[in-house]
């Protein structure tokens, strides 16, 4: 069974349809990168998967269960798919450790001491063992995003969705975040990553999806989609984004 499955998903804002009939599945342990121009619906798609947006047509299924924002199970479902945001979205009034421990303690009601111990380990794992008690404002963008990744991991999710996790970072900080993501991929974490980092997509992704104007134009292994794109729209996009 796929961890995430989209079948003929449509999403509109008012009259304006921004996702047109998108279908794809993500298997356990798979890393799927979604690329595409700005405004093509990448964020909206992730937000629908996490139940942060409603969708109007088709079906999104996570671990066999339909994602339905009106359902009483939606919160439970959200705890199983974590999200890492472009702008980190850490809780500024809580330390790095508290940010990571917040969900497990207050949402999942896990025992506090065990959660704190695990959260410390997670922060150490993303290279922030020395910053456990720092507040987000005291951290660089790259460090904040690594805390956000630790926060996602703290939920023990079945999959993590990343929405352009390095786009808000200074160029010299991108590498440290990508390195953490790469190690997660190596450990078998299921990941859906919206990114403009073509190098990351090429080396880490099992599959690349090209989204344009709300349409899933093309998908396949990175060496095919990125090196030998079949569709003219993909070719055009890659020509503009990759320095030749």
């Amino acid at each position, binding site marked *: 069974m796929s961890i995430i499955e989209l079948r003929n998903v449509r999403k509109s804002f008012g009259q304006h349809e921004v996702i047109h009939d998108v279908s794809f599945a993500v298997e356990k342990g798979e890393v799927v990168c979604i690329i595409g121009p700005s405004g093509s619906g990448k964020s909206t798609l992730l937000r629908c998967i996490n139940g942060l947006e409603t969708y109007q047509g088709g079906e999104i299924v996570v671990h066999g269960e339909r994602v339905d924002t009106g359902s009483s199970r939606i919160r439970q479902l959200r705890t199983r798919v*974590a999200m890492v945001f472009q702008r980190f979205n850490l809780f500024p009034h809580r330390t790095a450790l508290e940010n990571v421990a917040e969900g497990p303690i207050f949402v999942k009601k896990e025992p506090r001491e065990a959660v704190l111990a695990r959260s410390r380990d997670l922060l150490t794992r993303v290279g922030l063992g020395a910053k456990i008690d720092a507040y987000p404002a005291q951290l660089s963008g790259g460090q904040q995003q690594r805390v956000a990744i630790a926060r996602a991991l703290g939920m023990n999710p079945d999959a993590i969705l990343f929405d352009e996790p390095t786009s808000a970072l200074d160029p010299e900080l991108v590498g440290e975040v990508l390195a953490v993501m790469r190690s997660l991929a190596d450990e078998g974490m299921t990941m859906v990553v919206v990114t403009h980092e073509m190098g990351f997509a090429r080396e880490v992704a099992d599959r690349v999806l090209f989204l344009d104007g709300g349409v899933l134009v093309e998908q396949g292994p990175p060496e095919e989609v990125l090196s030998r794109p079949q569709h003219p729209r993909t070719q055009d996009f890659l020509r503009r984004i990759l320095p030749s």
Partner: protein
Amino acid sequence: MSHFLSQAETFLPILMQGVYLTVLVTLGAFVLATGLGLVWAFMRVSGIAPLAWTARTIIVVVRGIPGMVTLFYIYFVMPDLGLSLTALQAAIIGLGIAYSPYMAEVFRAGIEAIDRGQTEAALSIGMGWSLLMRRVVLPQAIRVALPPYGSTMVMLLKDSSLASTITVAELSLQGKLLASSTFENTTIFTLVALIYLAMSLPLTAFNSWLERRMRQAR
């Protein structure tokens, strides 16, 4: 000066009875306005259209009516509708209602100052509305709202003198009554003004201190 001091000694105990009522009206109305203001604010940010609309209407209507008229309404009109209140009760309820829109706006501004991304992050880890409010929004909103909340209390302290219009012998009315029976206008109204200052200045100072602390805490 010594004349003033010896007179002050005579008048102060009488004025203190007024102070007692002033404090009672201020605190009572403050608590009520806080409660109502929280309700209006939560209704407005609930995302539920009829609730938001109702709260907005209440705020606009109450804010458009002078506080004194609200007091008259509670004290003189309510008995016709079968609800008799003492002057003190009417003053507390009337001022509490009259001040609730300001409270609501203070709280709403605090809540809306929280970046939307945090709400999303909270939802994405499975928080529901009440956890989101308790753990994420309110702790931060309080920092934003506390200074204006404190200033509202100072305004309310001064406006508690409106209670005199419905016969509550709070500080200003007590002063007026005392003055009209003794003709010591200068001494008495100087005392009354000093007593108001003695209450409002520490509040204002406490407020500025709080504001500085909130700002330091990031």
